[in-house]
């Protein structure tokens, strides 16, 4: 039997979308959703669900869409996932549920993410519906960080009757969903709506509190919180340690994206925060953050050319395929097998170019990918006036330094028990990028849920 093709997702035309920050993928219509859902085989053993870090009951919610029961579908998703409109957009479904889908054998897995997004958006569009608030069990739990790990933990804990306080260092809620992922990939309205639902369920959010500075983990416990979940996120941006990185015009992707997303620098001077960017921009790195930075730069009015500079080849790029495709459609130029060795500047200290080596791929390295090796005498200069380093982050020590007895892994991430997220301190749990290093939204959410379950187990006997 021939497998029908996936229902395509409508998207903004690339030529138009590089002039705005509005969402690129436009979402299914009701007809499209039902058509796509009708392709689902409703397997007896739904292997897709095993690919989901938060165990969404995929078979059931798609079954409900097939019947046109969209309210039932969203309720089903929400049983295990507190942020479906976010996950439907930013999860790497191709490596998770959709990879496991039986129809993927024919290369045409059910578009689970798009369906999740459709029912979540449909529910949000009809106004925020708040699941009933369970009776309080009188126990207090604190969550540090309002990113995906923290929100997932908070959602599950409040549903179990805990009194939950979320401490956030920044002035706005959502962590990387707000400061990192651009508007055109995840509209901030969606994040706000999801946060408001949690607030309505009883989660108390405290912004402008930097745990480790304003208050320590031990002081939080003294306030009567019986358990603490640390979802503090990735941390300090890495640089290459090459000459010229302090020149004006060199940013970390974190800084660039924070200015654009959190501070709305693309709307300067309507918003106070500016972002200084030249006409020719090089983004170094090829992960999702690099794609976000490159595509954000592409949308700024004075930018003419954006390069992704990466020392391996396109096949090794860690970004989601979809992001890479979108970037290419938007005219971003890939400079692969290219390794920066020096940033050049003018007398005034501004960037004028990026000196690179050409690379070729040699033997596989520890990561299993072929190791890039510099070609002798291959130096050349890419003329740019802005360089954005998207090389990942190293752990922020604010919490680990101020929490006695909290153990870290040798690279600085928090050390936890795999199954529960329990740290070396009793009653203190952790998950997300603070534990794993930079990963995905859904893995962070999965860790938040796992820790919430473990915290519940721990506090049952208390």
């Amino acid at each position, binding site marked *: 039997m021939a497998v029908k093709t996936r229902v395509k997702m409508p998207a903004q035309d690339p030529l138009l979308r590089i002039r705005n920050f509005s969402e690129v993928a436009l979402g299914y219509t009701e007809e499209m959703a039902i058509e796509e859902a009708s392709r689902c085989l409703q397997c007896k053993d739904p292997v897709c669900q095993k690919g989901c870090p938060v165990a969404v009951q995929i078979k059931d919610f798609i079954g409900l869409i097939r019947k046109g029961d969209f309210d039932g579908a969203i309720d089903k998703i929400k049983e295990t996932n507190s942020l479906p409109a976010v996950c439907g957009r930013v999860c790497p479904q191709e490596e998770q549920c959709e990879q496991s889908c039986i129809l993927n054998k024919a290369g045409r897995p059910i578009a689970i993410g798009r369906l999740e997004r459709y029912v979540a958006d449909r529910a949000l569009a009809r106004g925020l519906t708040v699941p009933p608030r369970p009776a309080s069990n009188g126990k207090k739990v604190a969550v540090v960080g309002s990113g995906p790990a923290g929100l997932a933990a908070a959602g599950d804990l409040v549903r179990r009757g805990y009194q939950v306080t979320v401490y956030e*260092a*920044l*002035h706005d809620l959502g962590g990387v969903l707000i*400061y990192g992922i651009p508007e055109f990939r995840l509209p901030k309205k969606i994040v706000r709506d999801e946060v408001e639902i949690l607030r309505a369920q009883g989660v108390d959010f405290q*912004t*402008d*509190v*930097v745990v480790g*500075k*304003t*208050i320590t983990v031990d002081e939080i416990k003294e306030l009567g919180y019986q358990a603490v979940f640390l979802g503090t996120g990735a*941390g*300090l*941006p890495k*640089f290459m*340690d090459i000459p010229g*990185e*302090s020149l*004006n015009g060199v*940013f*970390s992707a*974190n*800084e660039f994206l*924070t*200015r654009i997303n959190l*501070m*709305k620098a693309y709307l*300067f*001077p*309507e*918003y*106070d*925060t*500016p972002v*200084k960017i030249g006409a020719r921009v090089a983004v170094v790195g090829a992960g999702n953050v690099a794609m976000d930075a490159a595509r954000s730069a592409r949308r700024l009015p004075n930018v003419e050319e954006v390069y992704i500079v990466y020392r391996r080849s396109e096949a090794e790029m860690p970004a989601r395929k979809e992001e890479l495709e979108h970037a290419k459609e938007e005219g971003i130029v890939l400079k692969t097998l290219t390794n920066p060795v020096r940033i050049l500047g003018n007398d*005034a*200290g501004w960037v004028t170019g990026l000196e690179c080596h050409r690379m070729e791929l040699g033997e596989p390295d520890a990561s299993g990918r072929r190791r890039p090796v510099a070609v002798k005498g291959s130096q050349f200069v890419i003329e740019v006036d802005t360089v954005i380093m998207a090389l990942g982050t190293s752990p*922020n*020590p*604010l919490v680990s330094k101020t929490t006695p007895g909290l153990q870290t892994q040798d690279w600085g991430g928090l050390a936890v028990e795999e199954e529960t997220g329990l740290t070396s301190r009793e009653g203190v749990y952790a998950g997300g990028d603070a534990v794993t290093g930079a990963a995905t939204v859904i893995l962070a959410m999965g860790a938040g849920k796992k820790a919430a379950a473990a915290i519940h187990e721990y506090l049952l006997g208390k």
Partner: protein
Amino acid sequence: MFKILQRRDLTPITKLYVVQAPLVARKAQPGQFVIVRLDPRGERIPLTIADYDREKGTVTIVIQEVGKTSRDLGRLTAGDSILDFTGPLGVPAQLAEKGIVVCVGGGFGVAPIYPKAKALHAKGVEVISIIGARNKDLLIFEEELQQVSQEVLVATDDGSKGHHGLVTDVLKQLINSGRKLDEVIAIGPMIMMRAVAEVTRPYRLKTWVSVDPIMVDGTGMCGACRVTVGGQVRFACVDGPVFDGHLVDFDEALRRGKLYAEEQKLANERAQREVH
């Protein structure tokens, strides 16, 4: 929201605010700063803590109206509120335990010198303060520093009070007077801190400076505030803002400080138009 309990105009362009921020006050130490944001479209700016009162739960900041946000802040008064007031951030200053410490403050940098001088004085360390401004009307915190200093030496650019010239002239005289000085703490414009470091370098007189780079989040996330110290890149927000003045690459820091000069000018002009 963080309520302004008191405003005091120190000079026509320098204003002091006492802000209700009990969590920040409880933890604040000399050398630390807060990040302030005034309205939903506002920028986040770092401001060094000028004083704090743990019992009353208040934190004092001093601003000079130079940019859009400091000017907007300058329009607020007692009873108004500040939208975001986050801290205390940065590493507390390591203060000497004994001996003689010279506290050099220039312009509105005199304000953040005060909590250090006060803490040193409380430990029994002898404090000599040198403060400077363009003219006598722009001098701030002189009385407060009198309370915690052995002596307060004044320099003004126009000679309207104290030494006619720079704080570094006074510092040189003090060093040459033969008194045994143990440390120098300098806070003020980057150019002043560089000059102080150059004066003390030949004497190997330990000199702490408090850098004031561009910041966005202030918690180590963005790296905008990177400063080269002793050949190493440091983040002022989590590694500083206090560094060894003899190791800071001031030329680079000055250049990086001007990154958004054009945008600041644009925002200022726009704000001017709105006022008129």
